[in-house]
């Protein structure tokens, strides 16, 4: 089985033979991955170098491998593996929603309905865990609606404002 694994921009060519031997970039490596008690917890030995690895989902639901306490996103290609589509499919059209990435309290709403906004403008400020979080719009537009007001408790994912595209010239 041959894999192309990309970790944070670095790509490794990894081959695992039917008897479990591992070749990386066509060099043999002595690799021993031990799963601990059915947990997503592993002890990895690579030519006797010892790593601890933990496989988990990150906030966005993507799988990540935590090595020595540091999280790495890994994507994989290989025979029978649907190529991971990391296409930069950005919606350039239609309304965009500004929602709360965390639950918290709305400290401030900086825009009014009907107001024009530019990419990067702060639409609202959310407080969560004693931190202020600025919620910005990713592109130019007009505020169609605002569905929350300062002082209000907000759930995760709750929509705070909807921004319409600028009318086409």
């Amino acid at each position, binding site marked *: 089985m041959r*894999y192309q694994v990309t970790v944070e921009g670095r790509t*490794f060519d990894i081959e695992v033979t*039917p008897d479990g031997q591992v070749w990386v970039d066509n060099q043999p490596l*002595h690799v021993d991955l031990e799963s601990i008690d059915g947990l997503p917890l592993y002890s990895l030995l*690579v030519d006797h170098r010892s790593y601890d690895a933990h496989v988990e989902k990150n*906030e966005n639901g993507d799988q990540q491998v935590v090595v020595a*306490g540091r999280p*790495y996103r890994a994507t994989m290609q290989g025979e029978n593996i649907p190529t991971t589509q990391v296409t930069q499919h950005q919606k350039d059209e239609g309304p965009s929603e500004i929602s709360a990435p965390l639950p918290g309290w709305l400290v401030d709403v900086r825009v009014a309905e009907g107001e024009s906004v530019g990419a990067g403008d702060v639409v609202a400020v959310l407080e969560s865990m004693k*931190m202020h979080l600025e919620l910005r719009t990713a592109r130019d537009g007009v505020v169609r609606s605002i569905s929350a007001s*300062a002082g209000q408790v907000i759930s995760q994912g709750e929509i705070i404002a909807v921004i319409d595209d600028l009318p086409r010239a």
Partner: protein
Amino acid sequence: MIKKVLVANRGEIAVRVLRTCKELGFETVAIYSEADREALHVRFADEAYCIGPPPPKDSYLRGDHILQVALEAGAQLIHPGYGFLADSPEFARACNDAGVTFVGPLPETIEQLSDKAAVRRLARRLRLHILPGTKRSLDDAQLLASADKIGYPLLLKAAAGGSGIGIQIINSHSELETAIPTARREARTTFGDGALYLERLIENARHIEVQLLADAEGHIINLGERECSIQRRHQKLIEEAPSRALDSSLRRKILRSAVRIARTVGFIGAGTVEFLLDPEGRYYFLKVNPRLQVEHTVTEAVTGVDIVKEQLRIASGRSLRYSQKEVKPRGWALECRILAEDPFRNYTASIGRISRLHEPGGPGVRVDSGIYEGLAITPYYDSLLAKLVTWGETRGVAIVRMRRALEEYRIHGVMTNLDLHRALLNSHRFFGGQFHTRFLEEQFVPKEPEEEEYLAAALTTALLDWRRRAGAQTQSNGVANRWKMLGRWELLGGGDP
């Protein structure tokens, strides 16, 4: 009679205080908001009472509820921890009036210390330097005029703010003009008070503070200084004791200044006097915190004094057990605040459930944690999960020990700033002690992770997929191990496997 203590706080500091109460043989009472039913301090205390819904204003700030619980449970003492009601003279007074001893200074002292203008006047009378700044009730035009007089850069602060919230750095007249309206609005929303004031920004300043203990008979001692210059967004991140920035003559002066100001206000209990130190060795008085601080642990590590125990003793009317001469600091201590936030994405707070936890141990390591495996981290309170403290004979040993302990620490389920700490502790400038309060945000560049860890992540990903496909016959690691081991025996040329 066995005493009963109510701890009017949550998280790591509630656990911290409960620990000492247990050691003293006191019965303990915890309070919790609806969001904290699972919290460690609830499981840790002998008794626990729900005091309201998650928002602090409805629970941990409800002094009336908390006092009611204390009376119902029969507690003789209330320890406020830090934050929440710790600086509230009203709460302290209500407790004392109800016959429950508030663990802290007299309500009048707390009141006096919370009046920032009065404290500044007092400091000036004692001939301490204070930061040039304005009153707290200026209108926009007055602020702009004062700013030009004080000179830039300066800090625009919310009068009702605290703990580093509501502070902005202003570099010019025009910046200030733009900043004022937003700052007023935010201050009004966040603190319910739009008042702002200005303060001179000292460049390349270091934050030095002095830990004090004082009893009701007027004995006051210092437990040495702490340095807390590694900050993010004006909030302390790494603290240490003692400070590299002080030579013995400057140390003596600062310690003496701290004791003098405490004596003047009739301070009783454990408190901290905060100073800013400029690169020329001039120190500016900032304020007196009439309570336990997050970073009291580093002072405990070097002096061997349990500060919470001394607080409880003093609150029980006993006199100090130490003379100044008997306080003999040893070695060096560091504290890293472990926060649920993503330091590489603008310190965004992170919530979730602790899915796995492995804490460091071994010589010279102390962990003060408010979490455990399975606990949900909610967005209602601050993001402090735990404090990691290391001690060493020298600052160098404390640092290498902290590096080692940070490498051991594993928290899964929420993002933490462990990695930022690792990077900071590995930086040459931190090791050299060359930093100031804006070091992290202005000068620090984290190191890239080690190249070989990328490969480890890639191998784990590929092998897990391969195993899923290959199925059961390769699950048996024991067989693979034995095979490899046999290979090894041949290599070593001997031994019956």
